[in-house]
């Protein structure tokens, strides 16, 4: 059974441990722009949301990628990124409706969640179970998608 990364914003405390773990895993240092997951906090409401690539079934980023650097292996859930094919056109960052793939000027590549090879560091780091690496069932996927759709309305990325 494949797994997906579930977000529970109501449990998020805004601690950013997920970002720290992601950055440390991918780059061996703590640099927030290197994190593929980002947490947004609204202080007046005391509300925080972690956001990362949702590995969309019909991924906009894949559709616009001219070289198939962003691609999916048949049967897999992960939208993969092949750096050797990437030409740095940034089309993926424009296409993603959620802003979950972001171009990082330091590393020179678009960053998206790669689930850390099937063992997400963020889920292990989250102290409040706001991030869960769970089996992919129909009910899990629907909940995740409905959250994702809400948040595309809820926040503006520039």
């Amino acid at each position, binding site marked *: 059974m494949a797994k997906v990364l579930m977000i529970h914003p109501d449990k998020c405390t805004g601690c950013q441990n997920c970002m720290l773990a992601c950055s*440390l895993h991918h780059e061996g240092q703590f640099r927030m722009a290197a994190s593929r997951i980002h947490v947004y906090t609204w202080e007046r409401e005391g509300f925080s949301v972690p956001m990362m690539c949702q590995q969309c079934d019909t991924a906009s980023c894949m559709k616009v990628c001219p070289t198939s650097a962003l691609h999916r292996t048949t049967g897999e859930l992960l939208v993969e990124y092949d750096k050797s094919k990437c030409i740095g056109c940034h089309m993926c960052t424009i296409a993603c409706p959620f802003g979950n793939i972001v171009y990082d000027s*330091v590393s020179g590549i678009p960053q998206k969640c790669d689930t850390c090879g099937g063992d997400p560091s963020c889920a292990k780091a989250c102290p409040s179970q706001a991030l869960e690496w769970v089996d992919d069932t129909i009910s899990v996927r629907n909940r995740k998608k409905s959250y994702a759709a809400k948040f595309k309305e809820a926040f503006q990325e520039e």
Partner: protein
Amino acid sequence: MNGWSGTILRINLSTGAISRQPSNKNDLALFLGARGLGVKIFTDEVDPRVDPLSPENKLIFAPGPFSGTMAPSAGRYHVVAKSPLTNGIAGANSGGVFGAVMKYAGYDGLIFEGKADKPVYVWINDDKVEIRDAAHLWGKWVPDTTDAVRAETDADASVACIGPAGEKLVLFASIQNEMHRSAGRGGLGAVMGSKNLKAIAFRGTKGVRVADVKGLQDAVFAARAKLAANPIAQGLNRHGTEILVNIHNELGCLPTRNYQDGHFPTADKVGGETLTKDFLVRKKGCFSCVISCGRVTRVKDPKYAGEGEGPEYEAGWGYGPDCGVDNLSAVTKANHLCNELGMDSITAPATIACVIDLAEAGLLPAADFDGLDIRWGNAELMVELTKRIGLRQGIGDKAALGSYRFAELYGHPEYSMSVKKQEIPAYDARGIQGIGLEYATCNRGGCHVKGYTIAVETLGNGMRLDPREIKGKPAVVKAFQDMTAAVDASGGCIFGTFGMVADDFAAMLSALTGIHYSPEDYVRAGERIWNLERQFNLKAGFTAKDDALPERLYKSPIQTGPSKGLVSRVPEMLPEYYSLRGWNEEGVPSPEKLQELQLA
């Protein structure tokens, strides 16, 4: 550099000069960062006799080596200056994300000197530093200030600012970051206001480098496991700090009505259980925190409606039992107001308690009541008087000086429950001896958090010591004070010490920085910082006579409840405390001790 950023930023607000210097590696190694680095720089550069509200005072912000890393519950920063409340050294610690963002912008310290001739704010975006006009921000409360600064800098900037209280030089004004987090005690907000500095906004995109990634990951996860297994850390996650109301009341050690008594029959109405049931919206955590003791709270009672964070135990106590009030809606609203106006939520209610005490004793002329119904148990008074203090209106203008100076104005300073003019908090030192010694000897004045022996005297964290005993307490107080100073200097939150010990902190610090720290080295850094602060205070004019609790705690026993009849025995503990610290009978560090700590 691993762990630290390597740069100190200096801003002279009188001249507008902005300069950078490399962080002194020796200072970092010996004093770690945050509180330690701040105190080292401050004591090197500032005359202890300086007037705290004059341009000659300096205001130093510093994160620690852990800030911005995955060290659990360790993303804090410290602010150091000379306190206008105590006239001694002030150091206040705050969570949120500001400390981490300072590191990501590339700074180990930020020093403000002088005074701007008009209100300004500072915008620091990695290497770009701008001093900007803040005339349009002056007068705004903390939440509006935060939003307005972000609107003209960066939507995700981390903002530390003062509210009206700091602008008007309330002597216990705070510096707030992320709106609700507080560098609360000692009046650092007033120092900031005296410099016409309204806000500091940070954005940082740099990284914090790690010497030994695997070593740090292992040490971090081992430390996190300890915190996940610790009942106090988990209890804080479930109920926040307000959970302490009931235990201290049942022990008869909940200071009531300005320390007239130690027991408050309706305490449960303002306890953490009630807060969780009726006010809690969700939990909140500071940067890298795994405990998340923060409480997002909403008051539904229309009279006190509002949303914010807290109250913490100290504010809940201050606005509650200390003033004879058991209305948690009013208490929560008053705490929200402290954050919004930018004031210390311990000194504010403790000062109000003093005002009430004087009024009830007939020592405050009715003409000075400012139309208020000043009496014990008046819930509305908590909210109204807090506003008047923050805005320095009516009687609030005098109360803005703190309980000692207020009581002194009316000829009765003995009504102020303070040490070195800073108000003592929510644990009755007549029934808990060790914390009384901490109150009396803390370098920043009446304070519990810098030597939190409560953990072992009443909360049962591992070791359990009889709160009524004085035997052995001086050593315990010293150990807590030294360890806390080291944790403060690392950028850590002391709540981490409920599960982590010096070994854990030292292991993480070593892996992060690449410099080997044994647990003894780590704690010694704390002892070094404590002695440096002490020296400054002595030069500022403090003596052993100032290491004393209010007379009420020595002469007036607790009147009711399980701890009835008890008084504080701090004077009996002081000689042993001084001796253990390597100080003479006047509490002056010996030359040998200073040499041992590399302070001579």
